[in-house]
């Protein structure tokens, strides 16, 4: 599925809920679907800086697409990471680099997080994009 189609689906799914409490419940559910990181990657190297709760993110590049796995010690955070992974995992580095993540504002996620938590969300996005840039550069060098 196209990256933007996935984003639109998320926006549709969230639009069902009027109340932010229900949206949080949905995030908690989403957290359970998160492709969980291999415990051996739950190290400092894969810890994302700038989050209030611990978030580990691991990229796996097969030469074409990047597959992300992640985990967090906070359940709502796990839900948020799982949304990012739904959109960005299984994509080429170029797709990730160019992704305009409009769903974050459309579902009102950023407005519903405190500034420090919102910064944490941006750190996750930045980290995923940085991995994409790194793999993209590496691929270009090899060619």
């Amino acid at each position: 599925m196209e990256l933007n189609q996935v984003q639109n689906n998320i926006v549709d799914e969230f639009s069902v809920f009027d109340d932010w409490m229900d949206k949080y419940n949905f995030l908690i559910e989403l957290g359970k679907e998160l492709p969980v990181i291999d415990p051996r990657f739950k190290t400092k190297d894969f810890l994302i800086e700038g989050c209030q709760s611990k978030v580990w993110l691991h990229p796996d590049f097969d030469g074409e697409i990047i597959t992300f796995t992640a985990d967090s010690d906070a359940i709502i955070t796990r839900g948020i990471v799982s949304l990012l992974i739904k959109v960005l995992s299984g994509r080429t580095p170029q797709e990730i680099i160019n992704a305009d993540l409009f769903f974050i504002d459309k579902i009102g996620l950023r407005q519903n997080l405190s500034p420090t938590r919102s910064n944490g969300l941006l750190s996750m996005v930045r980290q995923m994009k940085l991995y994409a840039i790194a793999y993209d550069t590496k691929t270009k060098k090899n060619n």
Partner: protein
Amino acid sequence: MCERKKATLRIIPINDDGEIIFDEYLKLLNPRTKLVSVSQVSNALGTVLPVRKIINAAHSADIPVLIDGAQGIQHGAVDVKKMNCDFYVFSGHKIYGPTGIGVLFGKEKYLDEMPPYQGGGDMVDKVTFEKTTYNELPFKFEAGTMNYVGAIGLGKALEYVLGIGRENIAEMEQDLLKYATEKLSAINDIKIFGKSGNKISIISFLINNIHQYDAGMILDKMGIAVRTGTHCAQPVMDRFGIDGTIRASMCFYNTKEEVDILVEGIGKVIEMFS
């Protein structure tokens, strides 16, 4: 300061209730101890430290004591003369005043010895190329244009607090603390950190193994303002082997009904995450 002066910082250990272990404190004092610096109140646990005892012990070895009153000044009467501390500091915003201003009280004998920490207008007495003599106290520490806007604001805040009465504030807050501690202790899923018999009106706690961040987000959505995280007190968190708590801070203008709302909110958090 340790980096600059090659000093060693030594920490007074605390017990499981979050109180300092006084005998351990005494063991830390030695002829090379230059300064004892303690908080009047722990911001993470609420413990009120026995500052009079701490000061007396230090003074018997001629060691000056600095009391950080940022968490203590707004919760009850403070008398620096009776306390006999050598320095007492607090920030304006912790006593309902503006940010960017605070108070440093120091005994004259120490302040006279100390050189100005910055230069600017009004802090010098006489300037020649050979020698500059400094103005008298407090002007030598008040270089340049003062933050008078902050000073006026802080003055008003202090008048407000004095108007309510610091004894009254202490009484109202202790009443709330007692009520909230009873209510929260009755919830089986809650663990309270900081159980000293001498506390200000904050309760630091965790709910089962629910992450403080998750709980904080849900409480926030219900309009309940708590603080979550380490409260800038990582060593205290390490002491208890946790990476943060939820902290409910009650102030004299809070009510028992609001404590009930918090208890309800905690119930909702437990329901959502179990």
